[in-house]
């Protein structure tokens, strides 16, 4: 059998170009949102409601992607909505990593009762359906962007902790840890200076899997009405509002924000795939 790996790898090398430039473009567009559109995503103009996109011939150049039921500009909603999605993606992943990493390091290094207790908690957390935990907490706590980021971030700690703990367990019997201990380096120092850098690759791959999931989770929560506040320009919220007017013929208010969300998640997923192939020592 001819070895198929080289051909596949050559093709993989071309992927990051597409996904990396797509993601960069989306991030830049989100950052530059106020300069790319003259409209405020919240600004209503009832006289201009349900304006179709300009390429259908019935729209207006001032609203290239059309307007929604209250005359708000769809393009502005998408641009500012991308900001929300990116904020949720980076923010909640950062919280998961900041909470999960120290706990995982500690459990893996200490072992014993601390380890058993933490891993039991991880098992319980992972056996709970994330979307319902988030829905339940937000139903009780009320909607809001920062609450959503916090809830999603705190739900994600378990996966990070488990991964970091596993890697630490694998690393701690290595000679360099013994050497560091012999040099009387303190536990935190050993963990952060020596064990953590060896875990980073695996952590990076996990992060690239978590981020697209979290971005979609926020959109889903907002779609179900228990995510961000009603006046926040979230892509999920926009799709949800547009859904109500689907049968009256205005397809653009839900289709276009959803498409933007798809592109963002696709870019992150493609980049994550490439990252996994590039960093996974087994694949090399």
């Amino acid at each position: 059998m001819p070895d198929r790996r080289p051909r596949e790898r050559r093709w993989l090398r071309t992927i990051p170009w597409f996904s990396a430039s797509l993601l960069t473009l989306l991030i830049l567009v989100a950052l530059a949102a106020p300069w790319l559109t003259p409209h405020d995503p919240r600004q209503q103009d009832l006289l201009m409601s349900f304006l179709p996109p300009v390429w259908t011939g019935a729209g207006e150049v001032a609203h290239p992607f059309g307007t929604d039921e209250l005359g708000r500009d769809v393009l502005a909603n998408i641009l500012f909505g991308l900001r929300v999605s990116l904020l949720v993606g980076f923010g909640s992943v950062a919280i998961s990593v900041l909470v999960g990493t120290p706990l995982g390091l500690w459990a893996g290094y200490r072992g014993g009762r601390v380890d058993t207790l933490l891993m039991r908690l991880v098992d319980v957390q992972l056996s709970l359906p994330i979307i319902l935990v988030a829905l339940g907490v937000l139903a009780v706590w009320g909607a809001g962007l920062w609450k959503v980021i916090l809830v999603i971030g705190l739900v994600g700690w378990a996966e990070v902790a488990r991964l970091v703990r596993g890697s630490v367990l694998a690393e701690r019997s290595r000679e360099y840890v013994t050497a560091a201990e012999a040099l009387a380096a303190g536990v935190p120092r050993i963990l952060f200076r020596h064990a953590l850098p060896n875990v980073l690759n695996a952590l990076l791959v996990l992060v690239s899997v978590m981020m697209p999931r979290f971005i979609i989770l926020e959109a889903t929560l907002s779609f179900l009405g228990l995510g961000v506040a009603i006046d926040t320009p979230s892509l999920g919220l926009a799709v949800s509002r547009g859904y109500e007017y689907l049968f009256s013929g205005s397809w653009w208010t839900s289709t276009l924000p959803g498409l933007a969300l798809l592109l963002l998640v696709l870019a992150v997923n493609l980049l994550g795939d490439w990252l996994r192939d590039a960093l996974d020592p087994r694949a090399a």
Partner: protein
Amino acid sequence: MTTFLLRRTAQALFTVWVVATLVFGLLHVAGDPAQILAPPDMNQIQVQELREALGLDEPIWVQYGLFLGNLLQGDLGISYYNGRPALELVLERLPATFELVLSALGIALVAGVPLGILAALSAGSRLDRALRFVSVIGISAPTFWIGIMLILVFSVEWGVLPSSGRGGPVNLVLPAVTLSLFSLAFFLRIVRSSFLEVLNQDFVRTARAKGLPRGVVNVKHALRNALIPFVTIAGLQFGQLLTSSVVTETIFAWPGMNRLVLQAMYRLDYPIILAFAVVVAVTFATINLIVDVIYGFVDPRVRHA
């Protein structure tokens, strides 16, 4: 085997207890359910009566004790909203959710696994590239958006399939397809990569070297080994779908238990949320148990370990 089953059952009961306690805790952080339930024209005395009738005036420890006692007897309280036993309401909706989830899982398995095998066998080819790209889109597209796009095309534009309700098989098509797409793409990717991994292993090379026909090696040596971990993944995916179908049920007005619990969350109807959490925890534990048993059958190494 008996020890194993007992240990797993104990673990499952532990999880159910933790879940129930979490829900109980969450609900009591929320505030005063009596205030939320009371109609606006109710005066304070009536609210107090309501609170006593629901047992909400007792100290929290008494409430927790009562709660655990009732839980052991399968009594999960009465829905605040429509006054019927919560567990009964949830179980009533269970068949609809199972019908949707099993159909979606079926579609995902029947299409995703063969496509994954196809992609692995033609690794590096144009077909493989196309399948990989489509599957990345499949795992990237938000379920609610897929559902809306399908409604837009099949219900609004062409008018060939109904967009809501449960009834005949026609009603099932769009929700089941919507719910299945993520799993389909996910299965395709998993099967492809685990099949490829096995194809590169020594025992497959040996089988080829001793001159066995390609088809025999692919199916008997490679495929069977590649699909072993897949049993676990398919089981986990079933659990995932069971709750993530909340989106699909909402979009297509499917009368499943997830839509019931979402409405209960809007209304803070605690007993329903609790009953749902317990039902889901028990179902999860059962699925895991079944998966473990199947695993023992397909992989003799586990059985003898």
